[in-house]
Structures are given as C-alpha cells and as structure tokens.
C-alpha cells in the first residue's frame, strides 16, 4: 500500500484517536497508545509487507464463532491484506492492545473511523480484547504468551512451503513472566526459525502496576539471548532505531526487538495515575475534565467535547 502519511503522523494519529475514544467512553487503554504508537505506526506504515485489505472498511457485525456449521466464518486478518506467500503476517500478542491496533488500522487507511465507534459494543466484531474475528487479528492472543508459539509454527510451515513472507509478532514485556514465551524462543532457536520477527513493547507496566513490583523479570535481553534469540534494544519512540534494528542479521535465530518505551509518552499527565495504568478509567468527572484539558494540550489539539456522545 502507498504511504499516505508520515510514520510520525500515524503515531500522532494513534494517540489522538485512543485519547478521543477514552475521553468519550470515560476510560481506555491510554498508556498502551503512549508506549506503542511509534512501534505500531512503524510496523504498519513501513516495515510490514502487506497487501490491500480484503475486508470492508466498515467492519461487519459479529458473524459467529468458528464451527462446522458456520460456513461464512472468517478472521479479521483481511484488514492486513491477503495471506499470500510473499506477504508478511502480524499477530498482536497482547490482545488488550486492540484499541491501539484498531486506531493504527484507521490511520494507515485499512479501516474506516466508524470501526472505532463499534469498539466494545454488543454485537460488534471490534472487540475490547482483540478476537480472531476482530479487525487486524488472525488468531486469539487474549491469553498472554501464546502468540510467539503460534507465530513460530506458522513461520516454520511457511518456510517449508518456500514462502518469502515473515511472521511478525507484536509483544508486550509482561509476557516474559509466562513460561510459554521461553518455550517458544527455545523452539525457534532449536529449529532455526528465522522468519519470525518480534517487537516487544518494553514499558515495564502490567495489570497490577509496575512490573518490578509485581514480578521482577531481570535482564530480558540477556535471558532471550541465552534462550537463542537475536535481540536488539532500541528506544521504542525513535523510528530510526527501529528501522536499523529490523535490518539486523539473525540467520538461524528469531529476531526480537526490545523497544524501551514510556507509558506516558505524549500524555505526561498520565503519570498522576501511576502505577494503575493498565486500563485508565477516570475516577470522577473532575479528573476526566482535567485529563481532557491536560492531554489535549500535550497533544496540541482541542479538548474533546465528550458531552455530545
């Protein structure tokens, strides 16, 4: 697809859309937009080799779960284009980043803005925790830790078929607390699966709060290297560092880019909510109004007129 916007503009648009949505709905995954905006913008706007979307710009309603009877069933992968040999695939492993991922699809012209209006509405496919049938999703990743393993299997299979496309995984750092993540890395290394590439949002936050207060995970990079991955550490808000990292040679190993990020980036007033950043729900109308004013000022936009909705 043609890049219609700069990646910086896409990243800004992601924060703006998630902010607007969260203001109107009195809460949302704001900190994930702050930490992930540049990473998802870079993936979709530059790095991923994707075809034109195959699904309607305005998402269809929920069409039922997979079953032998549901002949019309399809996943939301069509928003990333067709599953053809040369194209890349992307799994969003932390499925609660869905709001941020949907905002990205809109910013890169793969979904209509109306899609975000359907977020978390009954009967909608644009679910709060990205499901297989949600826009841009291909597999269920709502339980953390399964994304990299699934990608490894798909990548091994694609390589066996001689397909050139890569399998990308967008990961979150909390996932390293799950044992399966380490099983997946060792399996990639053992089977030399080097068409798997991951970028991990290392924002050091998880549901209960700061990771070092919930379960210290130590030196993620060193541990991953020891399990057999090629690891590159970057600033998760600097596009040039991600661009360079993706060029790293990782023959016979999976590439994992650790993107150190800030959960307040672009919205510094979220620091007032630390350490409860996982899902920001405003505690009072006063807090909501103040956040609206402060974050809008930080983003350089007008405050949201959420009373209209």
């Amino acid at each position: 697809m043609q890049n219609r916007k700069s990646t910086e503009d896409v990243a800004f648009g992601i924060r703006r859309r998630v902010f607007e949505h969260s203001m109107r709905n009195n809460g949302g995954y704001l900190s994930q937009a702050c930490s992930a905006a540049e990473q998802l913008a870079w993936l979709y706007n530059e790095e991923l080799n994707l075809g034109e979307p195959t699904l309607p710009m305005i998402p269809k309603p929920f069409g039922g779960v997979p079953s032998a009877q549901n002949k019309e069933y399809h996943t939301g992968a069509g928003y990333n284009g067709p599953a053809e040999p040369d194209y890349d695939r992307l799994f969003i492993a932390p499925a609660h980043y869905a709001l941020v991922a949907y905002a990205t699809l809109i910013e890169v012209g793969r979904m209509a803005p109306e899609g975000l209006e359907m977020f978390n509405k009954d009967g909608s496919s644009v679910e709060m925790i990205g499901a297989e049938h949600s826009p841009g999703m291909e597999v269920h990743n709502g339980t953390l830790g399964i994304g990299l393993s699934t990608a490894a299997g798909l990548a091994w299979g694609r390589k066996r078929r001689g397909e050139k496309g890569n399998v990308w995984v967008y990961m979150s750092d909390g996932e390293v607390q799950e044992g399966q993540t380490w099983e997946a890395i060792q399996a990639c290394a053992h089977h030399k699966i080097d068409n798997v590439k991951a970028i991990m949002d290392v924002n050091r936050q998880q549901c209960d709060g700061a990771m070092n207060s919930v379960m210290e995970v130590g030196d993620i990079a060193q541990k991953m290297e020891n399990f057999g991955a090629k690891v590159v550490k970057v600033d998760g808000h600097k596009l040039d560092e991600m661009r360079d990292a993706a060029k790293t040679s990782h023959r016979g190993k999976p590439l994992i880019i650790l993107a150190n990020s800030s959960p307040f980036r672009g919205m510094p007033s979220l620091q007032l909510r630390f350490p409860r950043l996982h899902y920001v729900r405003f505690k009072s109308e006063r807090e909501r109004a103040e956040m609206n004013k402060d974050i809008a000022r930080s983003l350089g936009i007008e405050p949201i007129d959420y009373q209209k909705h």
Partner: protein
Amino acid sequence: MVEMVARPYERAFEKHALENPDVLCLSADLTSSCEIDKFRDKHPDQFLSLGMAEQNMLSFAGGLGLAGYRPFLHTFGVFLYRRPYDQLMASIAYPRRKVRLMGFLPGITTPGGMTHQAIEDISVMRSIPNMTILETGDATEVESICEAADSIDGPVYCRVLRGNVPRLFDTPIEVGKMRELSLGEDILIVTSGITTEEALRAKSALESAGISIRHLHLNTIKPFDEEAMLDHIHSVKGGVITLENHVTEGGIGSLLAEIIADNGVGKKLVRLGLKDTYAHGGSRPYLMNYYGLDAIALVKGVERLTGQVLNISEEDLTSARVEAVHSTVKAEGL
C-alpha cells in the same frame, strides 16, 4: 486364541504420513514411547521434536495448522490437555485447526500413576466445542486411527493403544459408526477402548447364565449419533450398563445418561468405571481389577442391574477369553 499385534501404530502412522505430505509428526520427548522413533530416524524431514514443552507444542501446532499442515501430536494423552489446556482451547479447538492429538496410554493403561493416567480426558474433550473424540479398542482400530483422525475437518483427540494389542475386529474405524457386537434382548452393554475386550470376555458366561446381551463398541465418542443409540436402548427389555476406562463422570456413562434423560427413556443405567477417584500406579490387570473395570466388575454390574445372582466366577471369565469374538460370534458379521 486372539491374535496379538505388535506395535500397530508404528506401521500405520508411517504409511499414512508417507501418503500425505502435509501430515507432520510432532513429538514431545516421548518418541519411542509413542512408537514413532523409527519414523523419526527414517523420515527426519517430516518429524519435529518439540521437547518437554507442551504449551509451546500446542500453540506451535496451531500455527502449523494455519500454514495448512495437519500435525499429529504424539505424547501421553494426559500431557495433551492438563498443562496446555489454555493452548488447546485458544490455538487449536477454537480456530478448528486440523491438529491430530494422539493420546497414548489412556486411563489406567499405564503404571505411571496419577500424573500419567488420563482418566478424565474424554470428559474434558467432550466439553470443548469443535472437538472430535475417537478411541481405539483393538489393533485394527489402531491401524486405522490415523486415516480416521485425518479425515476430520477440525481438531481431533484420539485415545491410542500401543505395544501388543489384540485384534478383535476385521474392519477399520468408520467415524461415527458404532460396532454392534451382539444384538441380544435383555440388557444393553456399551463399551469403548480396552473395556470392550472385557465385555467380550464376560459375554458367553452371561449368556450361559441366561442373560441375552446387546453389546455396542464405540470408537467415535464425539460427535455422537444418538438416534442409533436410542434404537438400541429401546431394543432391550432391561437396562443399560456402561464400562469405561475413565471416570464415570463426563465419559460414555454420562453420554448414555444424557441420551436416556434427554429422551425421557425410563430405563436404569449402571455406569462402571473409576468412581470419582484417582488411580495409582500398577499393572493393567491389577488396576482393572482393583478399580472395577474388568469382566468380573461387569458381571457384578449386570447382577446389580437385573437383581439376579449369576454365580459366575473369575475362572469362568478367563477361560472364555477372546476366542468368541473372531470365531463363533463373528463380531463384524452382525
């Protein structure tokens, strides 16, 4: 005497895999225990070792399914669903991947004790949407399990017998079709897996005692055609007995209970199997006797169901071993 077949899975899998290039052989460090070590050595390019890491193996297999492969996962049945249950749900069952879960050592067929004995696997799998469940009861069914499993449009869990396996049947598994081993009129006995051989051992003694047996063997547990079963339930004057190598909750005993209750059939049901208990480690004959899964347990169950004392001893059953199946009864001729 019944024919014993050595390692029927080993040959059957190799034949099936070589005929189907999209079939992959996955193992989780129990390669020789699951009779695929020769396959690994002869066909390494179709074999994937995933180590002692079942959670990764199940999601990895889901990814292989997404790439259009049909992975056969080999390990002990219990390791396919207890630890990696979440991965089974999210990566295999929900998206209906064509993953073939080959569960060896079903129920008490292992001396490995609680950690190795899949005693509630059928119950777990029956409650998973999109899952198909097959169970092998003899060498012919083991020889045909790969083809049967691979015909399923979605995930399938199979209880597979290994080692020396008796040959009871002449025809391969037909998915969805129960075997009618005898068509008597007094009571209905429903078995699957290794308990079918036990029921066959009890049959002639029961008939000598004047009980006319209708005996069905199930190799397809889910999905299940209840109409055919209802006809059999209606065809007997008395009640129904199930005998399973599994806890009596959620397996074929529960399956029969559901059919009887759903259809308002007023017949008694005796469910034999592990009665809300774990087993411990021991030999198969010992465990089958200790936990009441063998032929004598079935005889006692018939006594309970009919209220008759049958005066059948264990010796009567041993002498009646499986000759009856192939020669006089001609199980497949029915």
